[in-house]
């Protein structure tokens, strides 16, 4: 590939946002079409990442490096490996779907909405591609502003509260991480280069402090158990596209941060802290699930289910073995697809009924059969039924979890049962039972809506039936990562013994 793919994927949407901003406000259809064409174009541009990716190496690929602030040693450095490449693709895909699902539901300030959406896309991709911590931090924070506006302007009744809460939570964590980044910078010989940090061994006490600094930022984003309270508010109040982006991509950044920065840069601290992280994850799994059982608002229920599902992801990641980490990454993709799809589906019915209360539904399957079928598949995938993508991910995570700790594995498995309970119960209350007179008059999904959900449905089945397409991307990178975490800081002798055992 001769042209800089990653830069294009980042800056095409940003340029698109600018173009949209220059279009006259009254010309709504042009705005929408511009947004759609640009997001499709970005997706198309990102496809070579899928086809041209070399799966045999753990090295960074599609790299670009330019000097940015030489006196600080800051570079504009991009690159993807097996861990990040799929997230880039997921981001570009979900953005297209966000544009189509918002086609008719955003009635006022269309221009600003689509501009904000494209801005978010550009910075999301930037987060996943950055190989320079400074650059990473810029993208990480820059994304907050359009996201804040997305929730705060187009959200539900309580939007300003939710938006500010979201921003504040994230910012506290980010600022602590910023301090961590700067400390890391001084200890890496004044460099922000991530790859260099991955091969440097820092003293243990420093690693521990840095781990908590990074934890503050990533745990809020994931969100892990004690700092999850922003998520239900933000998800519930955000417009559909906002929820999809939040659930699909944004909260993956936290887990991605653990994988990309905490673990390879601070291997010893990660190893030491892993049991604690796993306990927090399991608390999140069970707590999130139990809260779901008590929800009366569909969106809020799905939001809390995210807490539970992301608990699985972090559990897998901190199991620190190949199955666990692979499962964690795959489950992030899965969760992005499935929860994204669930939010899209809720958005589709919300456009008709304008209510999110479960009590206002009932018997929807009789009135909107096609819609019910789609929702069924996503529900089953969320539960982790074999044949869907959810199964593969959760299976691998449990495998990794049990390898690391039997007790935690058992508790996590309980979480799956709770998950099945609340999802199926939700499905029953919304789609079966007596037909609620409020929903009787509504039409089934139109072609635009079917086309929005179809790609995700296909992905659910594809990953469920033949996960190897996607797992093969991460094999080499995950192996490299797990080895780095488990061997770093140990005496030469121990390393050789491990080699021999292998």
């Amino acid at each position, binding site marked *: 590939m001769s042209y800089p793919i990653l830069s294009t994927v980042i800056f095409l949407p940003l340029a698109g946002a600018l173009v949209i901003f220059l279009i006259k406000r009254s010309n709504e259809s042009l705005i929408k079409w511009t947004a759609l064409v640009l997001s499709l174009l970005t997706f198309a541009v990102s496809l070579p990442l899928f086809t041209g990716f070399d799966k045999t190496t753990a090295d960074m690929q599609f790299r670009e490096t330019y000097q*940015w*602030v*030489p*006196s*600080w040693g800051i570079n504009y450095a991009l690159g993807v490996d097996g861990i990040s490449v799929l997230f880039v693709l997921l981001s570009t895909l979900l953005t297209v779907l966000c544009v189509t699902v918002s086609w008719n539901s955003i009635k006022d*300030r269309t221009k600003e909405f689509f501009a904000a959406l494209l801005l978010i896309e550009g910075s999301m991709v930037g987060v996943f591609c950055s190989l320079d911590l400074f650059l990473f*931090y*810029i993208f990480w*924070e*820059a994304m*907050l*502003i359009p996201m*804040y*506006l997305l929730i*705060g*302007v187009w959200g539900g009744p309580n939007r*300003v509260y939710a*938006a*500010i809460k979201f*921003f*504040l939570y994230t*910012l*506290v964590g980010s*600022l*602590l991480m*910023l*301090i961590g980044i*700067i*400390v890391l*910078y*001084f200890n890496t010989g004044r460099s922000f280069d991530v790859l260099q940090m991955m091969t440097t061994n820092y003293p243990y006490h420093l690693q521990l402090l840095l781990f908590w600094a990074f934890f503050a930022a990533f745990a809020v984003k994931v969100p892990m158990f004690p700092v999850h309270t922003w998520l239900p508010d933000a998800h519930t109040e955000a417009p559909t596209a906002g929820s999809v982006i939040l659930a699909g991509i944004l909260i993956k950044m936290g887990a991605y941060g653990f994988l990309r920065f905490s673990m390879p840069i601070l291997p010893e601290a990660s190893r030491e802290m892993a049991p604690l992280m796993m306990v927090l994850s399991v608390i999140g799994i069970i707590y999130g699930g139990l809260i779901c059982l008590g929800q009366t608002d569909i969106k809020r229920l799905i939001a809390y289910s995210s807490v539970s599902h992301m608990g699985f992801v972090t559990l897998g990641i901190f199991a620190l073995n190949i199955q666990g980490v692979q499962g964690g990454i795959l489950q992030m993709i899965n969760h992005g697809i499935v929860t994204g799809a669930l939010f899209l589906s809720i958005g589709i019915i919300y456009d008709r009924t304008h209510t999110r209360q479960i009590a206002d539904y009932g018997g929807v399957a009789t009135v909107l059969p096609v819609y019910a079928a789609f929702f069924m598949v996503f529900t089953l995938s969320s539960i982790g039924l074999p044949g869907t993508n959810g199964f593969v991910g959760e299976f691998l995570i449990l495998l990794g979890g049990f390898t690391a700790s039997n007790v935690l594995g058992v508790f996590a498995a309980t979480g799956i049962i709770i998950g099945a309970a609340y999802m199926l119960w939700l499905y029953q209350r919304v789609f079966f039972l007596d037909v609620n007179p409020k929903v009787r008059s509504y039409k089934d999904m139109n072609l635009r809506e079917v086309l929005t959900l179809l790609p995700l449905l296909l992905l659910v089945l594809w990953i469920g039936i033949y996960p190897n397409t996607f797992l093969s991307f991460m094999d080499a990178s995950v192996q490299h990562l797990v080895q780095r975490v488990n061997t770093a800081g140990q005496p030469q002798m121990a390393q050789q013994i491990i080699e021999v055992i292998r």
Partner: protein
Amino acid sequence: MNSADFIALLPLIVPALASVVLLLLITFSRSHAVSVLFTLGSLLLSFLLLFVAGGGTPRRVTPLFIMDAYSLFFIGLLFIAGIVVAVMSSRYLGERSMERGEYYVLLLLATLGASVLAAGSHFASFFAGLEILSVSLYTLIAYRRNDDRGNEAGLKYLILAAASSSFLLFGMALVYAQTGSMDFFQLAEGGRVPDLTVVLSAGLLLITVGVGFKLAVVPFHLWTPDVYEGAPAPVAAFIATSSKGAIFALLMRYFSLMDLQRFPAVWYGIAGIAVASMLIGNLLALRQNNLKRILAYSSIAHMGYLLVAVLAGGTVAKTAVGYYLAAYFATMLGAFGVIAFLSGEEGDAENLEAYRGMAWSRPWTAGVFVAMLLSLAGIPLTAGFIGKFYVVAAGAGAALWIPLIVLVAGSTIGLYYYLRIVAVLYGRVPEGEGGAVTGFPGRVLGMTGGILLTVLTFALLWLGVYPAPLIRILQATVARLVP
């Protein structure tokens, strides 16, 4: 004083002469345009003369002044701020029926006083610069003679500034008694500063009190919100930027010469002030509904952030202060600029609720304002972020963990009220009054306002996205402050 001294001092002589000439000029012609153009011209000339003066640096001009790269940088910054404030004022005054010429005389004098501070290297020039600045400001704050709030603000500022000056002077007298010198460089000469004595520490603390008042740091901040509210918006911009920036430049020089680390009592005093300013400044801003007051409290917090860099000391800290001040100047001038240009005859556009929904009727004006607010909050891609990054880097380099944690807490609290303003800007106009978006009821920015604010916004983004050039300038100027 020979010709080389004269050339080095030209950037200070020109505004001094210009203010006298302008005073004579307005007795012949009271044309507003002439006053504005003359002021802008003289400030611009002084700015250009900095490059001429730069040829002979560093140069000690009498014991009072030191013209080195450090002072030239800050004087340049102050002149730019003076030009921006003058442009702001021209529109602000142009629409009000009051005496106009004297305003520019005072503005020139205030800028001169600030520049004297930046170049000062002696207690006498310190005091003289400070008073030229303050006395001009008293009048500028109370410039709207028929406005009760303006008079009240002016008087409050005067009373408290005069009291703080006496603290400062008492501190100077004590230091003088102990060291027998008023010259910063002589104070710095190792042997002349005796081992720590109670009197010397007391003197330094009293100086810190006096300076703390001017910087409006907690606990000497009580005047700030009232003065910002009562002063005309351009004057408030000047107080927030030039007045504080000049003091800061002097403080940096003084403390780096005295080697702050050797006086633990003073060091901890400043640390306490920094921590208190970051927390209290931000907390008090939370409940305000007046934009000028919010900006006042925000400026208190920003001075706290800056003090963290002073505590750190060292080359990185100096560059950090330089960058932060440049970013802070651009941001504060922009934020007050929006208020100044939207203000009408009946009063300043300071009520937050009046801005509700402005983003939909005036996307660019609101966009500029949001950019300024985000920069104040230190969000990436704005100059404020790089500034904060620099300060955090300086702090982390010196292992100042507690101030840094407070900085994080303060920034988070700060973000809340900045976001509140953004939420109002992007909020929905209450239904019922005309139904759809009726938009901001105030005035338009106008040509000068549009150009000025666009330039400031671009400067802000440029500094935020591509900071390398300014860093290079800072490394060639501010960072070379000896020792």
